């Protein structure tokens, strides 16, 4: 609780400094939430997610050799929705997940010049210094985006 007596809501992510690129630290109460918040962070940085509606749905299935590789591959797949298919993400649902696989759906709508604004273009999700760790309170992930 903060000094006003309100419950403090932990931010789902924060940006950290990296000279040429954009580092993001993501939080979650469990692995699923961490992955969900990472997908949200990716699009929240790029655009105003509040203006995105649910019009299209896309199935996602991604594999990785460990949880960290899985996170990068998951974000690569989510980013391709925009870079490859021109879709903005509103929400995603993870239906199955272990350390090596993730299955779910992502929902959003096609980018439209008159309705949406791009703040910054994230060009790629890198494997550089990717990290996931568990603290007593939360799960923390760190990823660097190429911008």
């Amino acid at each position, binding site marked *: 609780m903060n000094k006003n007596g309100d419950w403090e809501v932990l931010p789902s992510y924060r*940006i950290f*400094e*990296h*000279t*040429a*690129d*954009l580092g993001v630290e993501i939080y979650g109460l469990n692995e699923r939430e961490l992955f969900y918040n990472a997908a949200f962070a990716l699009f929240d940085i790029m655009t105003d997610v509040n203006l995105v509606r649910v019009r299209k749905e896309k199935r996602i299935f991604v594999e990785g*050799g*460990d949880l*960290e*590789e899985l996170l*990068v*591959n998951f974000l*690569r797949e989510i980013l*391709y929705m*925009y*870079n*490859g298919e*021109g879709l903005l993400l509103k929400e995603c649902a993870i239906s199955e997940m272990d350390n090596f696989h993730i299955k779910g759906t992502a929902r959003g709508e096609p*980018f439209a010049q008159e309705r949406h604004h*791009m*703040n*910054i*273009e994230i*060009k*790629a999700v*890198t*494997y*550089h*210094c*990717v990290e996931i760790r568990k603290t007593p309170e939360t799960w923390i992930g760190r990823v*660097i985006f*190429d*911008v």
Partner: protein
Amino acid sequence: MGELFLMSDIRVEKLDEFRWIIPPTGGMRVPGIIYADERMMKSIEKDESLKQVANVAHLPGIIRHSLAMPDIHWGYGFPIGGVAAFDMEDGIISPGGVGYDINCGVRLMTTNLQFDEIKNRVKDLVIALFRDIPAGVGSEGSIKLSPDEEKKVLREGAGWAVKHGYGSLGDLMTTEDGGRMDGADPACVSERALERGRRQLGTLGSGNHFLEIEVVDKIFDRKIASTFGLMVEGQVAVAIHTGSRGFGHQVCDDYLARMVKRSNKLDFPLPDRQLAFAYIASDEGKEYMSAMACAANYAWANRQILMHWTRQTFEKTLQMSPREIGMRLVYDVCHNIAKIEEFPVAGRKRKVCVHRKGATRALPPQHPALPDVYREVGQPVLIPGDMGTGSYVLAGAEKAFEETFGSSCHGAGRVMSRGRAMKESRNRSIVKEMADKGIVIMAAGKKTIREEMPDAYKNMEDVVNIVHRAGLSRKVARLRAVGCIKG
């Protein structure tokens, strides 16, 4: 050897006035060498880039040194400004050592115009260029490629553009490798990359890419400058800085994921997953090389098309003929690439695979790969500054051939993260600050101008002076910006 520095667990010793060495420790197969002076070293030590120089030295088949140019800064995997050559038999190729923007590069054109003649028209030119050249996040071009036509672009590079009326054959003479890399095979490229490539040919993109109207500000070497077509102070020139757009990014992304997947089976620990690699001689290595060549060719076609449109925009806006304007390509260089080239190693000529990630090829005079016109003076090395500060033109020199696998610096190099640039530029109008310096800027993204503000970069003069004094390239001319369009 002189002073000893300890930087983020990395031991660095001063080798001579411009070189620093990281002696091999742990899994490093060769030493690291950094070109910098003492003042620059203090800035370099602030980030993780020295560790990245050491990390690259872990890779199999690396020859002689893991090198870094003075514009070195923290990248992912390889540092930006990193150069490394690998043995063709037991060496590797790494998509992370080339970078996402495969064949990101620069081309410079001179004109017959003097700044005095056009100084009242710079604003009109910038507005017209901004209208005619698609720029910005996810920008798409007016060229729509069929799947078959796209494959021709990937195989033929800048030659495809010339064949379709964008510029002339003469342009190819002064483009690195004639604007086409051998071995390009579209069959090695994913459907995703092909899909992204079809929509973006003839676009500038976003981030640090730009198209700039420049003026020759100072000539350091008149003989070489006139050979390059830089005749006199006040002469108008144009620089284009862009690469292979989403196509190159997708090629890098696809192959990196494949190689990362395999990297946990290696018999030594990889210091950073972004350094994932394939052996040059392996099927996967060959496939990446063929896909990378496709992206290199895409970028050359892209810059060729943008140059053609620039010529047309100048003609329309100034109501002058092509002959009057005389926009001639000085040279086109790539600064994110891996190439098979020949260098003297341990007293004999050897084919090696040189990775240049944020580094420019710098061939010395008499090198057989030079176009005839530059045979006597060496290759033009084009160093774009940050937004709105202009460029340097250097010429390749002997020492680069001997020490750095024919490589020199590529730009100013960032010193400030984009986030910090946004904070520090709050309550400032960068556009107005530039206008006060006589530079007209138009950008597609509001934030780009602040993120790319000049304070976010190293002083380009320092970077260029080091490669000049270290003998990697000779200073030829400096150009200042007067107009700029950004993504």
